[in-house]
């Protein structure tokens, strides 16, 4: 049985165009104590990030999405918030992400499908890295 994590107070922006996946992951992460903001497209994610009052510690984004891909979203948000933590997720194991995206240690990739424990492990690796600060500050 997974125990609640009352100490966790971090906020995650979850960007996933598959609504069933988004809903399931949001519930699972909420159960782990994270505050989760869900966007079902890259454009909505940009709007939500802009409107959100408070820090966003991490963005989890699907890679392949219509109109604005996860890569384009990453490039957009990184321009505005250089310190942003970013976790790409994709059902394509060969997702088109270049090595440059992972050079700074603030970005990672997790192939679908994954257990929630694996997802939380990837989240913690990014958030617990040195010099961690909230990535999106309003």
């Amino acid at each position, binding site marked *: *049985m*997974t125990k609640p994590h009352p100490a966790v107070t971090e906020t995650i922006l979850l960007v996933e165009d*598959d609504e*069933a*996946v988004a*809903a*399931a*992951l949001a*519930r*699972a992460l909420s*159960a782990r104590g994270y505050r989760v903001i869900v966007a079902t497209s890259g454009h909505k994610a940009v709007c939500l990030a802009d409107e959100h009052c408070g820090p966003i510690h991490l963005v989890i984004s699907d890679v*392949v999405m219509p109109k604005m891909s996860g890569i384009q979203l990453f490039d957009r948000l990184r321009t505005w918030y250089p310190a942003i933590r970013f976790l790409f*997720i*994709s*059902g*394509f*194991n*060969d997702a088109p992400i270049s090595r440059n995206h992972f050079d700074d240690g603030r970005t990672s990739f997790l*192939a*679908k*499908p*994954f*257990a*929630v*424990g694996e997802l939380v492990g990837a989240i913690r690796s990014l958030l617990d890295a040195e010099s961690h600060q909230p990535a999106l500050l309003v």
Partner: protein
Amino acid sequence: MTNQRRPSVLVAIADATDRGFVGGIAVEMGFPTISVGSEAAAWRALRSLDAGIVIVELPPGAGEGTLLCEQIRKFTSDECVVGAVAGRNGDGDLRLGLASGVDDLITRPFSFGQVTNRLLALEQLLATRRSLHETEREATRLRWLAEVGQAALTFQHEINNPLTALYAHLELLQSSNQTSASAAELASAVAQARRIQAVVTELAQPSRSSQRRITESRLQAAR
């Protein structure tokens, strides 16, 4: 080049002297050869011999030789090459011969050397054409495999999304209060989901870019 590897030659010339001359040269060069004197005999021989090189007689004007050429083209596609012997070398004869599908035309009188060199050229043309066909068949096969691989990757993606949601839901259920019986059922459901994941991963494995095999292809040889 051994005799076994040389293509068979069918010599279909009505004139007995020319037929014997050309057929004799082909035999001397090591080609398995059949010589016939009529279109009907040529047609029968073609069906039984699987000839790679056919030498036909191209009479002045549309006639038996041109019809035979057209039939050969229909029957063998491009899997054999056709050389024609003609009595004239005017523009009309050349046009007629090429239109009927011959690959080479030699005009009487011809020498031993001319026939020998023409047969060698036809043999080389046949080898090149067969190589091209093999390359085309391989390209078609690879295109088909690429489409299958792409379909497998799409299939993997389509399955991985619901599997991700399924894992999350199962974990939420596992974290809620449950009886030992339902816990066992949930553990079994997770195990079955893992099976699906393994199958999908294995299915798409050959399509992964890191698994691509690079092999040499001699496109220059297939012109």
